[in-house]
Each structure stands twice: as C-alpha cells, then as structure tokens.
C-alpha cells in the first residue's frame, strides 16, 4: 500500500480532545491536499473523527473550520495554483471557501467506533489509560480486515505494552505530538519492540509532510518530553519545601518557584503555570502511568494529589484561555496563588514584596522573548548565567540549582536509555516546550 493509499481511509480516536482535534486537523489537511493532486481526481479520502459525544464533535467541526480558514489564508497563493483549472473560482475568498469545503468534506464525525473498522490507519489520542487503549485497539484489530496501523499519541505508556496487549504484531508506533499539535513542531517517535519497518517509514514521511521535527525516543515510560517535565515538576515541589523551610508560606513558595523557573531560567512559563496549562490532573495521571515503569525512582507528587483533592485542576477553556489552577489568571496574567493548606487563593499583590525580599536581588535576566529565536542567544545567555553564578542571594542559589537539576534530568534521560543522545533531549525541550536553550548546556559548569 502506498503512502497515499494508506491515507485514503483514516480514523482519529478521541478526535474532539485537545490533542485529537489537532491531529484531526493536520491529517484532514494532508488528506485533502492529496485528494487535490491532479492524479487523484475521483479517489475518495475518508477521515473518521471518532469521539464519544456528539456535542464535542460539533465543537471540533467548528474548530476545524476556523483553523482551516487560517491555513487557507496563509497558503492562498499555493491554493490559487491548485485550483487553477477551476475557472469559476476567481477571488481569494472563493478559493479559500472551496478549500475549506474540500478539507471539511474529508472528515466524517461520528460516535461509532465501528467506523474505524474500515480504516488503514488509526490515530489514537484518547485518555492515558493503558487498559482502555489495549481494549479499543484489540476491538478494532479484530474487526478490521485491513490489518490497520496504529499511531498512538500516548505521552507516557510504553508502546510495547500496547502492542503486545492488543496483539498488533508491530503494527503500532508511538507518534507523540506536542500540544497544540497544529502549532508545535515536535513529534516524538517511539518504536515498540516489534514496530514494523514500513510503519516507521510511513511515520517519517507523514511527519515530513506535516513539517514536523522528529525526535526518536526509546520505549521507556514518559519518553523524553514527559521524562523531563515530570521530574522537573517533582524538583519544583522540592524547591517549594526548601523555601517553606526558609520561612515562606506554601503560596509564597509556589509563587517564588514559579517566578524563578520562568524569569531566572529564561523559560516561556514558570513550572506551575506549565502545570496549569497542561492540567494538574493530566500531570498527575502521567506520573501515575509512568511510575510503575521507573525503577529506583518515585514519580509521584503528594502536592498534586492534595491540589486535586481540593478540585484544583487547571487546563484550558475550549477557546484556549487558561482556567484557574495552582494559580489564578486574569487575561493571562497570574494574579493569585492557591494555598492548599488554607484552601484559598492568595493575591500576588499581598506577597510579592515579601517574596522578593526573601529571595534577594537577582541578576537581571533577559526576557525569554528576546532570546528565543535570537541567532545570537549564546551571547545573551552566557554573560547572564555568569552573573547568576556569582550572585550571593537565596533566589540566585535556587535558580542555579534549578538549572543544574534540569541538566541532570536531561543527562539521566540519556544515561537511562530513553533518549539516544544529549542533542535529542535539547531538541525536545527547545521545540516541544519552547525553551530558549537546551537543558544540557555548560552555562552552570
């Protein structure tokens, strides 16, 4: 089966979810672009958008339409070429409207899993539940005569567990998009013990057509992205306790840790903001999934448990704006921090001065925006980190240790065989997490 034939019948499971809808969008566009090639006239391309609720599917169709409009506006010049024979389409708006129709026309929203029984390729982006994934994969595999391939978006479950559990015989690959898939350039590709060569070849071709950067990871729970992120969270919680020992309240300590991990480490978000972005529940669940597979290490956070018990979840609204979580947001700005001991949000304005006094003077860090994408970023970062190394305040010490720990986690991922090399770890953090520099660096040496 050729690349094109494979993509003539596809299903996305969990299509209305945050990851699923992005995968649906990218795949729909790729399939529609194939269908519009002169040689493919008359061939049908079908993409089942499978999810559990009709309401959510209606929402995802609205999302698709809005996103395809943006994509079409961006590539209208290319579209004018594609539709050059359609003499009835003259203005840009007519061409864009036709393209939106052609992409949407590939997609079939449905709540019936049976639709996947005809597909050559199944993208899976459902809940991070190993047993559930195995059950659904088995069911499709047994009822689908086409020997379909399974592309799972799991960020934490070993692919071999799914492969063997569902009896797929290597017709599976970990194809882990980053959130949001439509924007993030990174895809982690993970093989099970028996992933077939042709599945891998297709995965690379597909990633290339989607203009994604592929980083291979070994089949070890959490892979590279969450391997770093989850351990980064656990360290942040440690820092919170260190700061509490120095006399901060827990809300102050969370606020301080978040600020240091963002400003002093020149990251796009602080660690607790990132937890809110992903969702406290999702982070906790990823840890739960990873933990059984990580030897000599406890991937589990009591702080996250406590937050969840009190209903603190974070995550995003369907329009992409941030829900309140560990912190409270107004127009994207952090205005308060949750105190799980008192079960209330403490306004930032009440603690900012005290926290800054306790942390002491910090060397002026460059803004993340000024560094990321800057070709001369090394020239900005080196002098900054040199200053940070010699600063004699509590805040600077915390920041130094944080940076060192991040490097240690990165090195651990290579040493434990999750990542093939240092560069891959850095690529994942640079592209998947938009860090301005890779964690494995020499700034703190």
């Amino acid at each position, binding site marked *: 089966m050729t690349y094109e034939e494979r993509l003539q019948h596809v299903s996305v499971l969990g299509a209305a979810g945050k990851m699923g809808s992005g995968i649906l969008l990218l795949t729909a566009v790729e399939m529609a672009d194939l269908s519009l090639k002169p040689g493919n006239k008359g061939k049908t391309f079908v993409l089942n958008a499978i999810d559990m609720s009709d309401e959510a599917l209606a929402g995802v169709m609205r999302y698709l339409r809005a996103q395809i409009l943006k994509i079409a*506006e961006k590539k*209208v*010049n290319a579209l004018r070429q594609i539709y050059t024979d359609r003499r009835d389409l003259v203005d840009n*708006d007519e061409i864009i409207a036709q393209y939106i129709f052609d992409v949407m026309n590939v997609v079939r929203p449905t709540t019936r899993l049976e639709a996947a029984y005809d597909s050559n390729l199944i993208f899976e982006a459902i809940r991070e539940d190993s047993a559930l994934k195995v059950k659904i994969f088995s069911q499709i595999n047994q009822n689908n005569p086409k020997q379909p391939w399974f592309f799972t978006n799991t960020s934490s479950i070993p692919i071999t567990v799914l492969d063997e559990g569902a009896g797929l015989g290597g017709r599976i690959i970990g194809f882990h998009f980053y959130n949001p898939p439509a924007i993030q350039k990174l895809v982690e590709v993970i093989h099970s013990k028996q992933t077939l060569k042709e599945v891998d070849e297709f995965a690379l071709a597909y990633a290339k057509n989607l203009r994604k950067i592929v980083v291979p990871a070994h089949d070890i729970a959490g892979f590279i992205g969450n391997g770093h992120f989850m351990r980064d969270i656990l360290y942040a919680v440690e820092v919170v306790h260190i700061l509490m020992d120095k006399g901060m309240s827990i809300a102050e300590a969370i606020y301080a840790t978040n600020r240091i991990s963002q400003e002093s480490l020149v990251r796009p978000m602080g660690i607790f903001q990132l937890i809110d972005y992903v969702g406290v529940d999702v982070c906790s669940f990823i840890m739960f999934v990873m933990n059984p597979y990580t030897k000599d290490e406890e991937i589990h956070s009591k702080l996250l448990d406590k937050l969840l018990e009190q209903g603190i979840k974070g995550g995003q609204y369907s329009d992409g704006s941030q829900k309140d979580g560990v912190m409270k947001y107004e127009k994207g700005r952090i205005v308060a921090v949750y105190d799980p001991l008192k079960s209330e949000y403490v306004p930032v304005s009440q603690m900012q001065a005290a926290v800054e006094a306790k942390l002491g003077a910090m060397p002026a860090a460059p803004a993340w925006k000024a560094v990321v994408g800057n070709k001369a970023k090394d020239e900005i970062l080196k002098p900054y980190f040199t200053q940070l190394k010699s600063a004699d305040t509590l805040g600077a010490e915390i920041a130094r240790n944080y940076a060192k720990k991040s490097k240690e986690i990165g090195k651990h991922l290579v040493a434990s065989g999750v990542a093939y090399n240092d560069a891959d770890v850095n690529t994942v953090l640079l592209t998947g997490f938009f860090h301005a520099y890779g964690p494995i660096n020499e700034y703190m040496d």
Partner: protein
Amino acid sequence: MVAGYNTISMGSGRKEFHPKKDRPGLEDYIKEAGQGTLKMIGGAQNVDECVIGNFMASRFNRQANLAAFFPFIDEGLRYKPAIRVEGACGTGGLALMSGIKSILAETAEVVLAVGFEVQNTVKAIYCADFLAPAGWAAMRKDGHAYFFPGQFSERAGAYFEKFGREMTRKGFARWYRNAIENARLCPTAQEYHNTTKDLEAAAMVEPNAKAFLENLTALDCSKVSDGASAIAIMSEEGLKRCGIPVSDAIEVVGFGQVEEDITKPPPDKTALTTMKQAVSNALDFAGITIDKVATAEIHDCFTVAGIMAVEALGLAEHGKGPEYVIAGNTARDGKFPINTTGGLIGWGHPTGGTGVHMAVTLWEQLKGRAGAAQVNIPDDRPYGLMANMGGDDKTLVSIVFKK
C-alpha cells in the same frame, strides 16, 4: 482650491488601530472631512454642487449610492446636486476633475469634493480581492493572490532586469525612508507613530516570494487605510461668496486627465507611460516646465511606482530614478521634495481619497500651512504638482497648482 481637510489615515501603524476592535465607519470619515471643509468656507449654504470619490465601498462596506451621503454630512446640502465618481485609485483625482469642470462650465461657483475609502473591514488577503477590479477582471483568475502587488512586483522585476537589482532596491529603500520620515511630521499620517531606527536597513530585507511577493516586501507597499479628505473647488466668485481672500487659495493652472486601455498590458513594464502623458499635458496646459515646480504629490502605491513616477515627471532619465532618489533629491530637504507628508506609503492610501489628499497636501504646502511637515517653496518655483493613478497606469489625473 481651498479649505482642505484630511482625517487621520487609520490602519496598521497607528497606535490606536486594533484590527479586532470596532472602528469608525465610512459615515464618520465622510462626515469629519466634509464638515471640516464646510466649516472653513462658511457652511453648506455656500456650496452649489458636491462630488464624492470612492472606489469600492460596495464591497468593503456594502454601500453604494454614495452621493446621498452629502445631506448626511450637512442638512444644508439636501436637494443640492451631487455625484459619485470612480476610477480605482485615481478616483480622488477624478473627483477633483469633476469639480474643476463644473467651475469651468460655470454651472457652479463652489464645489465640495470629498474622497474616501474605509478598507480595514477585511483582512489584507480579501482586501486584495476588492482592489483587483482596478485591473481587467479577465486577468484576475491567473493573477497573484495579492493581485495588484503582484503586478507591481512584476514591474519591479522588469526594472531589476533592465537597470540592475541592487541599485534599484536601494532606491526603493531610500524612497521608503523618505516616506516614513515625512509621515512622522504629520499627525494624521498612518506612519506617524513609526519608531523604526534604521528605515533603509528594514526596507532592504529580501522579499519572500513564498509568503508574499517575488520582488517587493510589505514595506514597498502602500498602506491599507481608512480615511477621507475634502477640499473646496471655487471660482473667484465663489471665494468672494465664502468671504475667503484669493491669497488663501491655490490656483489650478493646468491639468491632464488621461485614460489608457485597461485590457492591454503596459507597453513598457519599466515605465509609467500614461502618467508621463498626464503630467506632460498638465505642465503644457500650465505653460511651465517641471523645473518651476517646488514639490509634488505622486502616486507611490509601491516604491517601484514612486521611482518610475520620478522618471515620468521628467526629474530623472529612464533608468536613473533610483540614483536620483538615493542622492536625496526627493527628500524633504532635497532639490525636489516629493510626498511631503509620507505619500501613499507613509501617510496612507485610502484608495478613493488619495487624489483629494494630494490636493489638500499641496494646498497646505503652497500656503505655508503644513506645520512641522512644511518644506521650502522658493518664490521662483511657485508651483505644486500632483499625479494620481488608477490601476496599473490606466486612469491618470495630474494637476498643477500655483501658490
């Protein structure tokens, strides 16, 4: 002509502009400009006729029958004759010509001319659709997504090939710098708030054919603008009626109004041949040569059009426009200041209003009313010239004014 008024040219570049927030509509712009001029001429009762120039409100604003907005500007204009004219980006010039001809025909002593466009109702990619009818519709299907920019990118390509790319691009960059520097002196200009330090370096960034055009960047293009301009066209009798001394007005001493076949490609992609004809007609009519002119407002819808216009005016030989501009001759302190408030690239290009805006700017300059943007008007060169272009060198209006 007298009593010119420009609204702000609103759009990207202005601090107060936000594409997703509500903005004034065409009614607001027309009213502000119309009333601005009426106030200076003693009110609507002094007006005999009105003319409104607009290119594409039918699509940008879903509005036609525009002459009927005059009584909305001022009740005193109710039941007076008014017309709407259209000639793509040359519309404003046609509105002026319509008024001038009424005065010459002695059917009116005072004509109120308004030109406007409100374009930020859609994104640039759809704006390109709405502006494309300035060219021949039959060509649209196979044209660039950004149809007009595409046409002028082709012209730029032809010019590069014939006269050298590097020098020409440097000429574009200097043209851009002049436009922005002038706009910074005019509070109504769209680029008034521009703070870029090295303008020429910004303009020298290589074009990206995939994202936009092969030979031009966004900085080579005029602005997408909302704005209106108004001016009063009067006979001496009209000036008397309004109680305005003759010395406050500029005199129309010549004009050239020229049309070229819209279905034909330009005879020479490296020259604005129709503009050359219109300017030559206007100068002949006025009985002067270009060296008597102190300043000009010319139609730089693209930097390349500005360069070719310099040649069409006879300021530089064919192919020498870039050098002439690079040498600083067209800058505000140069030999021949052009587009002293920024032109279409710096001040803005509310398409149907641009021709009227040119006349308003010349009125201000020739009468010493241009404020911070004022340039020197030597006594031995008491003339100002405008060249307003519709389409790809198709509809041309050039007018010569005397101080």
